[in-house]
């Protein structure tokens, strides 16, 4: 399984890793500093329901990391464990350590949690336009972080809306309520919002459900460009989307990480039969 996929993982152990963190067997192998997010023996439970079985996984800097798998495999839960929004679900319990930039996110206390969340852009499958103007929707996060200069905000809003392929449609009505946009537009507004706080990591959870295919293709191109600047975690139920975009891909099934590795390998000669079944479409 994934523990064998360590050939690409070379370099030094992250020096600022807390000494108290339990070092898991295989991952005691040297971790490269270009590992951006790493999961060490992470598991998640909702009450007594296991949503994610213990697993290890590493996501490298400036790559598009695809996550595929059938519904209820725990993909969304995985994303929520990265930016600690599982905190808001009282029954959720995370064990193991999720590290971002080598820092264990569960060790973060106080206001630093909000900085962590600003460090990560999140897009969930259902479009959410906030009941603010389109402009304020995008300017929301920068304002909360203390940025109030109108010129800087103007530039930022335009840039984010352009990246989300929404600028041309809303540039003349920036003061319209975000909730009054169409579903697809709201979803792109959500993407713009996720980019607005200039994150280092962008997590997209089945972002293309509400968006038409043509626009989806355009956004995919943008993602390929953004890869130069960001690490992108792309959860998708469109297997071909992962194949097109992702450098590495992980396959989850029934709350278990089946395997992960270079996309080409996963799609052509995966180690598990079930993975091959899933990517070939004769799953179940």
């Amino acid at each position: 399984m994934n523990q064998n996929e360590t050939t690409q993982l070379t370099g030094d152990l992250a020096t600022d890793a807390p000494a108290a963190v339990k070092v898991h067997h295989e991952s005691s192998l040297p971790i490269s500093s270009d590992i951006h997010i790493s999961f060490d023996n992470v598991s998640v439970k909702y009450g007594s329901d296991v949503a994610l079985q213990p697993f290890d996984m590493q996501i490298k800097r400036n790559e598009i990391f695809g996550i595929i798998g059938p519904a209820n495999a725990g993909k969304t839960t995985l994303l929520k464990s990265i930016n600690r929004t599982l905190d808001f679900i009282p029954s959720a319990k995370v064990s193991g350590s999720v590290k971002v930039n080598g820092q264990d996110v569960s060790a973060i206390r106080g206001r630093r949690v909000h900085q962590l969340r600003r460090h990560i852009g999140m897009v969930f499958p259902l479009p959410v336009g906030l009941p603010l103007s389109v402009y304020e929707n995008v300017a929301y996060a920068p304002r909360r972080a203390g940025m109030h200069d109108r010129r800087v905000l103007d530039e930022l809003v335009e840039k984010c809306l352009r990246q989300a392929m929404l600028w041309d449609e809303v540039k003349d009505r920036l003061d319209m309520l975000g909730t009054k946009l169409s579903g697809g537009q709201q979803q792109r507004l959500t993407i713009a919002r996720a980019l607005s706080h200039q994150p280092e990591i962008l997590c997209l959870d089945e972002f293309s459900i509400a968006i038409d295919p043509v626009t989806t293709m355009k956004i995919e191109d943008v993602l390929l460009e953004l890869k130069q600047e960001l690490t992108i975690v792309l959860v998708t139920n469109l297997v071909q989307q992962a194949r097109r975009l992702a450098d590495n891909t992980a396959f989850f099934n029934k709350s278990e990480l089946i395997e992960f590795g270079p996309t080409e390998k996963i799609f052509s000669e995966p180690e598990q039969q079930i993975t091959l079944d899933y990517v070939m479409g004769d799953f179940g």
Partner: protein
Amino acid sequence: MANVNLNPNDGNNPFARTPQEIKRKRIELGAQFTFLMMTMALVIPMLWIMWDLAYRASDVLSYTYMVIGVGCVGLLIPYFLIEAAKRNEHKRKLFMGLAIAILAGISIWIVCITVFNMDNGGFDFLTLNPKKRMTAGGVWAPLIGTFLLVLLSLVISAPIGILAGVYLSEFANDNWFTRIINLAVVNLAGVPSIVHGLFGVGAFVYFMDMGRSLLAASSTVAVMTLPVIITSTKEALTSVPQSFRAACWNMGATKWQTIRTLVLPNSINGILTGVILQVARAAGETAPILFTGALYYKKIADTGFDSFVPYGLEDRFMALSYHLFTVATQVQDVPESFQFGTAVVLIGMVLMVNSISIGFRIYLRARKRW
């Protein structure tokens, strides 16, 4: 197509009604009529009671009626003008509307003069204190007492209630304790007001040693309205979808920032509607103030600043609802118009506040933001 014939007896018209259909229609109409009558059996006595109250109070309130009537017409004129201007209609129609409005005003005025006895001096009933064992004067002292009572109780219950609602629905963990508290809050809203009165006597008058006073009565009324304000606040807050909050949290906003910038601005109107309703309730309740501070009669200043703040926190006070009880059942020889006038002033106040809240809600529904 044309030879589809539903009714063989009437070959010419395929859509003619069958006897069954006609019978069914009759039953429907009958049913509608029956239910309409049941509704009317509620509405008509109501309207009649209102009319009777208003009519029998006209000796002392006719001038007030006229002012309010003319005032409403006066407000309607600009409304008509604006509407006409909006639709860009012909000017003649505009003047027609104006003329009709003025005519209506004049006719209301004439009706007031003829139907009601207009000689009864102006706003005296509202602005004079009760005199000669309540048989003369007006209702100023109880009116201002009720006003102070409502104001003070609101100052206590609105912030605590609203913030407690925010706490319970946004901050409190969902455990057995909060569930019990929520259950208690919901159930307290249905506890009889006289029980709240008992609580006030035990807790404020004797235990906290406030004595029977404006402060004790206001606190009692505040505690009575608190559960309802909490409940309506919680309802208003939950009407803001959870996904909005999640979106803000994902962008690194703190809970408080999310509440301040998104949740409160989108629920404050609903919250205020709930609070306004409680204002009306606080003004009308008698049982909770009966033993906590309301007084049968108190002489207060007739003019000047003291007539506006006649009762200190430690003083007992007159309140309109208790005054109505007094003049109706406890004092002899009060003129009928005084009794009915007091009732009309109380209803008028309460219904006015309620209408504001209803209007608020209709406006809100029209202006939905998602």
